[in-house]
């Protein structure tokens, strides 16, 4: 992702690229965490507008994608805090309508639900790590920025999670 320059048009173009490339991923993260399509849409809107707000003030960001997902994770945490319910690693989906069955055939819906059920057996942020790494295609370096940790530490952690998952299957 390019660093920002000082004109509004460039900020807008950068934001457009960010939105087009990440709208689905942000929505997925919100949906799997909250299990509610409407809430996921509201949160997605909020996440992008907060990101825009930060950018249009002229703030410099090294890695926009990591920044966007940091905003997303914080926003989701706020959502749970306000409702005073524990954060779920992967809330799954309440009913098939949240996946919009018309989007997927019934075998795909079943497969998605099985995967989410499996991921729900993992603790806390482990499922989120797997989603970002294997679904959204984040590199270890990007994720290290996101989680404010060293790439090596993160790589080892992910490896251990995968290993645990293997034992469960």
């Amino acid at each position, binding site marked *: 992702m390019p660093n920002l320059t*000082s*004109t*509004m*048009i460039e*900020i*807008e173009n950068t934001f457009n690229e960010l*939105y087009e490339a990440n*709208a*689905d991923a942000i*929505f*997925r993260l919100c*949906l*799997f965490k909250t299990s509610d399509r*409407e809430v996921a*849409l509201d949160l*997605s*809107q909020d996440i*992008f*507008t907060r990101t*825009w*707000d930060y950018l*249009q*003030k*002229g703030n410099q960001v090294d890695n926009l994608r990591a920044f966007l997902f940091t905003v997303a994770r914080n926003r989701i945490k706020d959502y749970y805090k306000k409702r005073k319910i524990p954060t779920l690693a992967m809330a799954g989906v309440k009913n098939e309508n949240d*996946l*919009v069955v018309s*989007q*997927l055939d019934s075998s*795909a819906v079943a*497969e*998605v639900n099985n*995967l*989410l059920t499996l991921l729900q057996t993992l603790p806390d942020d482990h499922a989120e790590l*797997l*989603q970002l790494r*294997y*679904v959204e295609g984040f590199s270890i370096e990007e994720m290290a920025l996101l989680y404010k940790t060293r790439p090596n530490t993160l790589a080892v952690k992910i490896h251990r999670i*995968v*290993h645990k*998952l*293997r034992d469960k299957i």
Partner: protein
Amino acid sequence: MKNSESNFERDLTSKLEVLKAVSLLPEERVALRFKIDTVIANTSVDQEYSSPQNRISLTALMLRTFSGVSILAATFAFMIVSANSLPGQQFYPVKTGFNEPIQRLATFGANEKLELEQKLIFKRVEEAKKLKTKGLLDLEKAKKIEDQINKQADMALSIAISENVAIDEKESDDIVKDMVVIAQTRGVAAGSIDAVRVLSGTSLVIQNEEVFNLSGGSTSQTNTSTITSSDPSTSVANPVAVDESLTKVGLHNQVKKSTALAEAGVASNKSIKTIQSVSLDNAVNSKNIVSTIDPQLIREAETYSDKKLETVRKTSILELDQVDKDSLIQAVEDATAVITLTKALDGD
């Protein structure tokens, strides 16, 4: 060992990629972008970037957002964005000024239009309930919702009545049906306004009877019906003489049906509240609108419904020669108002 681990990781990757199929629908994507762009257009720009040519106009943003998107997708986006909006929200005027008129245009027949309007009027109650659960239902919003209900009822009734008048000949059954649907529409409007008042904690009024002041006590009050009431008995003018007794029989039967439904609704409401009051399962009450309303208001609303129902009951047991057509029509309206109020406060 290492090989099988990396194979597993590869399998896991391809399995988890299936989750990518869950994504925004095309109309959701457009609607989401539009909402974001609207916020962007309204955001005040930092001094450094505030030269006029750098500001983004809403028109330009809309053109950009919708360029390359079909009018149909854009229309769907608007409808989706506004469908769940509430009074006070940005897209609420689209819901009442665009989505709902389209539904009305697509409905034919005077009675069918009124039946649709009854549903659209009750939607206002559902909106008031959502606002209530979010803690956003103040008196000002409640008044706006009441005004909207009145407006919808007045408009729908005047169109239906003029359509009925335009028809030269009608069978007695059809005339009864017209009268009943009109009375029911008035009843839904009156019951919906009552429900919005209970939700917002304001007083309920019975025509020519006591005002139920929800802070306690009662004072007498004259007719304060808020629904425009043309004389119901002339609302279906028919140049050909209709057997009055047949009309009264039909109306009388309807009064009995409506009374039974209203009684069932009131009884059901009371039993739901009894179950909830003894239930140890918090999940039963967790999304219950009734639990957000002062219990005193609920009791007073129940008294109000009982009183209204008592009048209806008395009309339903009278002999035909003891009751006039207007009283029967009023009884249908009142029973429908009670049904609407109890449905609104049934705990959903």
